[in-house]
C-alpha cells in the first residue's frame, strides 16, 4: 500500500500540529453538508447495520443529522438543546445542553457536534489526543473524552480527516459495551448555502414531545 500508515505518536509535535491545522480549518467553516453511511456494530446483532443519511452544519454550532432515507431518525441542535425526532413514530425528545443539564447524556449528545469544532481551546479541554496516524491522503486522530462521566458511555472516538483540504471524511464512536458507530462522509460541500429552517424544529400537535432529562 502506497503511503502506508505511519504511527507518528513518537514524533513529538506532529500530531498536535496536525490537530491544530485541522482545528484551524474547521474554525473557518461557516457551513458544511455531506451524505454519509452510518454503520453500527452492535453487540446485540451478529452483523453490522448500515444506514444512509445526510448531515448539515452551520456555524457556530447548529447541525442536523438525518439517518435513513427517508429519514427515520433526525437529530437537530437548535440553540442550547438537542431535539431527537422519530418521524415515523411522530415522537420528539428534547435534551437540554445547558449547564443545568448534567451527566453523561449531555456529554454524549454534545459529541454529535464533535466533528465541527469552532474553538480549539474548547476542543482540547474536552478531548485528549491519544494517538495519531497518517497516510498520504488522511490523518486519523484517536481521541478520548476528558470527562470521566463521558468516558463511561463513550470511551473513545476516531476522526479521519482528508489531508488535502482538511475535510472530515469519517468519525467513529466507541461505546462502553463494545459497540461502535461509524460515519463515512461523501459528497461533502464546504460553506454551502444552508436553509436556516433545517435547524429549526416546528412540531404540530400530532407529535409527542418529551424531555427525558428534565428534573
Amino acid at each position, binding site marked *: 500500500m502506497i503511503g502506508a500508515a505511519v504511527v507518528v505518536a513518537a514524533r513529538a509535535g506532529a500530531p498536535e500540529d496536525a490537530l491544530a491545522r485541522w482545528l484551524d480549518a474547521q474554525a473557518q467553516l461557516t457551513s458544511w453538508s455531506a451524505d454519509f453511511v*452510518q454503520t*453500527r456494530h*452492535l*453487540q*446485540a*446483532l*451478529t*452483523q453490522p*447495520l*448500515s*444506514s444512509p443519511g445526510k448531515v448539515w452544519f452551520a456555524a457556530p454550532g447548529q447541525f442536523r*443529522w438525518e*439517518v*435513513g432515507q427517508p429519514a*427515520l*431518525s*433526525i*437529530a437537530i441542535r437548535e440553540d442550547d438543546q438537542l431535539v*431527537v425526532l*422519530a418521524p415515523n413514530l411522530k415522537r420528539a*425528545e428534547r435534551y437540554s445542553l445547558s449547564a443545568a443539564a*448534567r*451527566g*453523561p*447524556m449531555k456529554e*454524549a449528545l454534545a459529541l*454529535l457536534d464533535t466533528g465541527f469544532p469552532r474553538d480549539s481551546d474548547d476542543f482540547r479541554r474536552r478531548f485528549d489526543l491519544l494517538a495519531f496516524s497518517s497516510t498520504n491522503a488522511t490523518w486519523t486522530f484517536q481521541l478520548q473524552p476528558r470527562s*470521566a*462521566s463521558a468516558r*463511561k*458511555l463513550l470511551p473513545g472516538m476516531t476522526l479521519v480527516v482528508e489531508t488535502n483540504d482538511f475535510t472530515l471524511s469519517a468519525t467513529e464512536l466507541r461505546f462502553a*459495551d463494545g*459497540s461502535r458507530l461509524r460515519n463515512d462522509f461523501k459528497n461533502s460541500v464546504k460553506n454551502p448555502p444552508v436553509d436556516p429552517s433545517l435547524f429549526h424544529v416546528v412540531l404540530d400537535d400530532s407529535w409527542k414531545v*418529551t*424531555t*427525558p432529562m*428534565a*428534573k
Partner: protein
Amino acid sequence: MTRSRWLGLLLLVPLAAGLFRLRFDADVLNLLPADLPSVAALQLHQRYFANARELVITVRGNDPAAVTSAAEALATRLSEAVQLVRAARWQAPWIEDPSAAAENLAWMWLQQPPEEFARLAARLSPTNVDRELTSVRETLATSLDPDALARASYDPLGFSRLPSTSGPPAGFDTGTGIFVNEDGTFRVIYVDPAPAHMNYTQADAWLAAVRRASTNAVAIPALDGADIHLGFTGTPAFVAEIATGMERDLTSSVLSTVVLIALLFWLAHRSWRPLGWLVVSLGLTLVITLALGGLVFGTLNVISLGFAAVLMGLAVDYGLVSYQEAVAGPGKSPAEIRREVAHGIGYSAVTTAGTFLLLGFAGLPGLAQLGALTAIGLLTGAVVMLFFFLPRVCPVSVPASRTGPAISPPKSHGQWSWWPTGIALAVIGGVLLWRGLPSMTASDDPLRPRHSPTYAAMEDLRRELGRTNSTYWLLFSGAVGDQLDATQAALAAARDRSEIDSFELPTTFWPRPRNAADNRKGADELAQRSTELRRVAMAAGFTTNSLALAGAVLTAWSRPEDPSAGTWPTNAMARFLTGRFSARTETGEWLALGLVQPGPKFVGDAAHLGLPPGVAMGSWDSLSTDLAGHVTRRVTWLTLLIGATLIGFLRLAFRNWREVGFSLAALALGFAMLLGVMTLAGWSWNLLSLVALPLLLGSSVDSTIHVQLALRRHGPDRTALWRITGKALLLCAGANIAGFGSLAWSSNAGLASLDLVCAVGVACVFVVCVGLLPTWWIAAHPSVIPPRVDPENPSSLYTAGLWRAGLHLGRLLPAAWAGVLARAGVKLYLRMRPERFDIVVENLLPFSAGDRGQAERLARANFEAFAAKLVDLWRYEAGVPVAESVQPGSGWDHFSPAVASGRGVLLVTPHLGNWEFGAPFLGRYGIKPLVLTAPEPAPHLTRLRADARARQGVETLVVGEDPFAFVEIIRRLQDGGVVALLIDRPNPSTAVPVELLGRPFLASVAAAELARATGCVVLPVFIVREAGSYRARALPPVEYEQRQLRDRAERIAFTGRILRALEPAIRQFPDQWFHFVPVWDTRPPQRSTPVAGGADSPPH
C-alpha cells in the same frame, strides 16, 4: 416511720415509673400539626418509607471511578463487620443479580390490564413477530436515542417496554437517583444495622463505630489523592445526633441557668445555706416534672425539652419571693411565711401555668408539649418551694444591717423625667424606620438542628439524587391500585399542561391479582412459544446475549402458577424496590409512594391536579408555606386571647382603666424595643420565635403590675421603689433571662431563636417597667408628688459650678447678650419650676391688695429684674468695674454725718435691688465696709464668692463659720467702722416677728443686738436700679436709746421700726424685692443671735 413518710415513699413509685417511661423523640415532623395535609403526607412518608433502621452513607469525590471504588470498598468492609452491619448495599440489586430483573418483569406484565397483555401477545404472535424484529433492527440502525438503543439491544422482543412507563421500568436502569448521581461523583450506601433495637446512646456508639470503619475503609492506597468525603445520615444518625444534642442542651441549659440563678441569689442575699437549698429545690422540681412528663407524655420531643431551663428561670421566683419574705420577717416560722406568700405564689403559678398551657393553641404540638411541661413544672415548683424549700430556710436570723434598716433610708424623689421615654421612643422609632421591622422566615429550618452534619448529608443526598425541597411526595392509601391508575392518568394530563415536569409512580409494580389471573393464560401461551421466538430472533440477526432477558421472562411464565400471585416477587431486588415505594401500616393497610416534580404552571393543589381521594400530597416547601400560615393564624388568635384575658386580669388588679392602659403601653413599648433589638441584630421571626409574643405577654405583665402597685405604696420615692420592687423584679427578670437565654445555644435553631427572643423581650419589658413606667404613672397622679422645691433650702441650681459658669458668662459676653441669656434662663426655669413662681406671687400679693393677676405680673417683672441683677452681679464678681455705675441717690447725705459721728455705722438693707454693689460704691469714698454674710449652701461656693469680693477689696465675714465673729463685728463698730447687714431674711435663730405692709413678717433682730452692744448709727440704705443705672439711697438713721435696748421687747420693737423705715422703699420697688421663699411666715424666733443672711442665691 410516720404516715407522711410512707405517703412520700408511695409517691416515689409513680415518679420512678415516669422517669423509667421517659423517652426522647428525635423526629422533627412530630413537632408539627398533623392536621395540616402537607404535614400528614410527610409524616406518613417519614414513618413508613424513610426506613426507620437504615443508615445512609454518602460518598463524594471528583473522580467517578474513585467514588465507585470507595463505595464498593466501604460496603465490603461494613458487610464484613457482622457485629455492626447486617447488610450494606452500594449498587442496585439488579446489577448484582440481573436474573431477578427478568423475574420481576414477568411479574409486572402479569399485573398489566389484560388488554395491554393482549397487545404484547399480538405483537409477538407468529404473524407479527417478524415485523416487530424488523422494526427493532430499524431502531438499532437509525435511532439517536441512547435509551432506545440500549433497550433494543438487550430486549429485542420488547418485554421491558411496559405500557405505563415512558422510560425504563424500575430495575432496568443503572440505579441513578437511588445509588448514584448522574455524573457518578456521588454515591449512596444503604446500611442495615446489625442490632435490632438501639436507644440513642447505643445508636451514638454504633454510629461512631461505623464511622471509624468507614473512614478506615476508604483510607487505602488506591484512593490516595481521590479526595473522598463521607457523609452519614438516615434515622440512626438523626437519633444519635438529635438525642445527644437534646441531652447536651438539657444539661448545659439547666446547669448554666442554675449557676446564673445562684449568682443572682448570692449577689442579693450573700448566704450559702438558702442558696444550696434553692438549688436542691430547683433540681427536685425538675426531676419531678420530668417524671410527671414521662407519665403524661412518655416521650419528650426536641422542643419540649427546652422547658427545663425556662422552668428553672420561672420557678426560682417562688423561692426568691418566699425567702425575701422570710428575710423580711426574721424568726417567723415556715407556716407563718407560707401563709403570707402562698396566695401570691399560688395565683402567680396558676396564671403563668395557664399562659403556658395556652401554647397548646399555637398550632405546634412540640410547643404545646413544652407549654404543658412548663405548666406542670410551675405548679410543682410552687409546691416544692412552699413545702420543701421554706421549712429548710426558716426561720431566718439575719443581721439587722441586712434585714432592712430600722431607720428608713431617706426618700429620694429624684427627677422623674420624660427624657428617657422620649429618647427610647426616638431610638426605637429611628431604628425601625431605618431598618424596618424584622422579617418573617417561612422556612421550616427552625425546626431542624443547627450545624447538623446529618442534615447537611441529607440535603446533599436529596440534591444529588434529584430530590429538592420542591419535590412533592404522593402518599396513596386505601384502594392503592385504583388510586395509582387514576393518578397516572391525572398526572400525565398535568404534565401535558406543564403543571408538572415529571412524576414517578409504582403503577407497574403494584400487585393487581385480578389482572394477574386474567393474563395467566396468555403468559402460558407465550412461554410455550419460547423456543420459536428465540429461533425467529436469531434468524433476524440477534445474538443469544440479546435474548437472555426475553428467555428469562418466558421461563418465569413457564413456571407453575404461584399461589401467592398478586403479591410481590420475593427476590432481593423486588424486596429492595418495594421497600422504596410501598409500606404496610400496623393495621395491615397498604401505602404507596409516588414523586412529582412541579412544572412551571404548578399550583400545589391535589384537587387541581385531579388526584383521586385518599392521595395525600406534600413537600418540604409546601410544608414551610402551610406552617407559616397555620402558625401565624394561630399565634394571632393566641395573642389576642391572652391579651384579652390579661386585660381582664389587669382590670381586676387595678380597678381602673388608666393603669391598665399603662400596663399595655409598657408592654407595647417593651415589644417595640424588642423589635428594634431584633432588627439591629438581624434576627427574623420564624415559626417558633413568633410564639414568643404570647409567651412574653403572659410572663411579662407581672412586672407592670408590681411596679404600679409599688408606686401606689411608695409614690415617687425612687429609693423605695428600687429597693423593694425594682430589685425583686431585677432578680426575677435576671432569672427569667438566664432561663430563656441559656437555650440561645441550643442545638435546635427554632428553640434557640424562641428563647433568645424571650430573653431579650423580658429584658426590654423590665427596662421599660422600671425605667419608664414610673414616669408615666407619676405624671398621671400629680397628687402623690410632693413639692419639688424646698423653700427652706437653697436651690439645687445654686452651686459653685453654675455660679462659676455665670461668672464666665459675665466676663466673656457683652452685658446685653448676657442679659438675653439670663432672661431666657429665667423663663426656662419658670417653666420647670412653676411652684417657685407661685411662692413669689404669694410674697407680692400685699403689693396688689390681693389681686392675684397683678401679683403675677409683678412676679414676672421680679424674675426679669433678678435676671438683670444676676448678670450685673456676675460681671462684678468676674472683675468688671461697676462702682461708676452706682450713683448717689436721694438721702445719701445722711451717710457722711453718720460716719463722722465716730459711733460706727451699721448699714441695714433689705433684699432690695443690688445690695452687693454697696461695697464698691463705698470704696469710692475710701470706706471699706465689713459685709456680713451667711454661709452659702456649699463651702466651695462660700469660698468662691468670698474670694470674688476680696478681689474687689471687700471684706466679708461669714458669720456662721466663726464663733468669734460677733466679737469682731462689735469691735469694728466700736472702732467707728462700717458694717453692712441684710435684715429681711433672718436665720431662724435671729428671727423676730414684726410687721411689714400690714402683715406679720420675720426680720433679723441682729441689728438691734449690735446697736445695744455698740451704740452705733443704724442707717437704712438700699441700692436699686432706676432708668438703667443703680442709685444708692439712704434714709435717716433710726434713732434709739441704747439703754432701752437691754429689753428684748424693745429690741424687737426697734427691729420693727427699721422695717417700717424701709417699707416705703420696698413698696416703691416691689419688682426688685428679691425673695424666692415664703416671707409671710410667722415662726417665733428661738434665740437672739445677731446673724445677717446674705442672700444672693438665685431662686430655688
